[in-house]
């Protein structure tokens, strides 16, 4: 299918998302395929989005973008099966739908655990050869244990040693994740995913609030993490839900906007 026809089909399927999604392929069986994309460095902490339409339904797979050419793996998604009418991604250039090579599989395995607000609750884990890394660790533990049983004839000790070997492999992988996290955050100048604008906003706003009182506008109800960050950052300033001198919001409201950063504004309430 020519690029022109592909673009036409994409515009029909993803009406309203023009300029955000770029077609990769149409009428394709996606089983076992991955995306290789070259995310520009200014893609920052955004994600690679892969959107496809199959059986009249639209599906999306997102993964944090890594700067440079990397493989992204939707194979773990139950919906990444069968024939897709169209597959698109938010990377404008240098994105490809393909079957993975060994180098791609290794690249997928090396994708680091990304620091994000949910990291404290659960980890995303890793995949190797289209399988969970943890199941491979279990296999490593069992195989090592069986080999050691044959050598030592002591099942309990062999099982312990087998798990220790697998745990060493896990730990090495974890240390690589730590190194990648440090590298990513330092390269972005300490910019934290999702909260970067809120943190920068709060650093400036706290001085402007001074000895005044503050409150949060209901528009922040859809941005709870930022709202909680502001609650922490301004905890030493008087909070007054009813008659605050300053309001933090996501859109200008009644009063004078005296500071803005990203989507956040600091509004000084006008005196009655």
């Amino acid at each position, binding site marked *: 299918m020519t690029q022109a026809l592909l673009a036409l089909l994409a515009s029909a399927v993803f009406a309203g998302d023009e300029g955000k999604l770029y077609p990769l392929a149409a009428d394709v069986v996606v089983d076992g395929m991955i995306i290789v994309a070259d995310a520009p460095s200014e893609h920052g902490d955004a994600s690679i989005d892969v959107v496809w339409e199959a059986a009249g339904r639209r599906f999306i797979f997102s993964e944090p973008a890594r700067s440079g050419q990397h493989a992204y793996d939707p194979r773990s998604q139950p919906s990444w099966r069968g024939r897709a009418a169209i597959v698109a991604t938010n990377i404008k250039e240098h994105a490809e739908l393909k079957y993975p090579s060994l180098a791609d599989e290794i690249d997928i395995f090396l994708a680091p*655990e990304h620091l994000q*607000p949910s*990291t*404290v*609750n*659960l*980890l*995303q*884990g*890793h995949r190797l050869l289209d399988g*969970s*890394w*943890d*199941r491979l*660790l*279990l296999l490593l*533990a069992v195989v090592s244990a069986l080999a050691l049983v044959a050598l030592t004839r*002591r*099942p*309990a*000790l062999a*099982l*312990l040693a087998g*798990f*220790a070997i*697998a*745990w060493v492999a*896990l*730990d090495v992988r*974890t*240390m690589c*994740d*730590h190194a990648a*996290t*440090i590298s990513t*955050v*330092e390269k972005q100048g*300490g910019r*934290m995913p999702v*909260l970067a604008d809120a*943190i920068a906003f709060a650093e400036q706003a706290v001085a402007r609030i001074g000895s005044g009182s503050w409150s949060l506008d209901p528009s922040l109800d859809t941005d*709870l*993490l930022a709202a*909680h*960050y502001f*609650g*922490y950052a301004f*905890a*030493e*300033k*008087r*909070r007054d*839900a009813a008659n605050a001198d300053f309001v933090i919001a996501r859109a200008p409201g009644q009063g004078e906007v005296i500071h803005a950063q990203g989507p956040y504004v600091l509004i000084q309430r006008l005196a009655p």
Partner: protein
Amino acid sequence: MISALGIGAHLALDAWLGWVLLCLSRRRPLTAEHVPSALLLGMYAETLWTCSVIFLGLPLPWAAATMLLPLALISVYAWQHRLIQRPVSAMAAPRWYEWLLFATVLEKVAFALWQLARTPLYFDDALTHWSGRSRALFAGINWSLDPASPLWLGYDPYARHYPLLTVVWRAETACLCGRWDDLLARADGVVFFLAALASVWFAVLRFSQARWFAALAVFFVAALPLQAWHAAAGYSDIAVEALAVAALAALLRQEWLLAGVLAAGTGWAKNDGLVIFMPALLLGAWLCAATWRDALRFLLGCASLAPWLLIKSVLALGVAPNQERFVWHRDAFGLLIQHVFLGPTSSIFWIGIALALLLSGRALWRDQTGRALLVVLGTQATCLFVVYGCTESYRWLANEGTIHRSMLQVSATALVIAAYGMWRRFTSSPS
């Protein structure tokens, strides 16, 4: 720099307090294995005291200062009566596997320290329930003891029932430093991480007398991927983990009073301690105790939490909001298996624990202490299942918002119990 000095000074004060209390409460020699217990004991006692005085109406700086007089008095008393002991330790030079262990633990600590130095406070509950409330308490502005005030116990209505160990500790540290920052908002996590590892080391070394086995046990706990994140996250789950394993270690040393106090500490760090750890450790103590006096000493230790329980009762602070209803969630067991045993957050840790217990179950059951430890672990598991399978906390299992943190709390105690079982198995099997 000021924060680091303040944190160090606060820790030193707590360690001294805990050490003096240990010296006063026992006549047997104290060894290096009591050091982590002393630190945790000091943090528990000092923050509980301060909090109790705050609820009597004194502002934080004065409440914290009232601790200094009794500390000075008991220190002088202990000194005059020659009760202060130096920890006895007969550690040989580190072996090659201990150097490897040291390297991996150092990596985790370095990663945590990097987070503390280079990233802001970032995770949600730390911003609200823990360091957010702590900062409000420190400033005294968005904090009220008036139940009618919207700022009653901080402005987060969902966290009012949360206990205050880390909240008070961080606020006190800020008072010591004269200001708040994101370092002291989270630094205690590293302390709890190291205290947990030290408790595991000493507990396993005590019953196995095998340094390689103790090193392996510490490695299994330290390398659990979530540990390094929680060492600098600003949450209290790692505090519960440290206190729980220190309590278990004290139980294994048959130090009943200390075990009871540290068990109470889990309830002072987070409500999970009241529901999961205190009942389990109480049952374990009852089964381990040779006489009713030992069990009574454990209960006496638990009773040290009375001031907080009284405050909770008077102010009608429950264990958690809307937890009164029990609702059976049919798929809870399946979700637990899927998320905990097969998910990436704990990796193969719990599969390993389960296999270790399967292999060593008979050896454990034949041993009085082993039976008690099985009951401890079984009770913890049962309580966890009831919480996540039979209450509205099910949603935190379904969305994995809390379950892995609860498993982190249990991880060190489970590892020590599994290690005990495996050692019994090794020593009872024919070579």
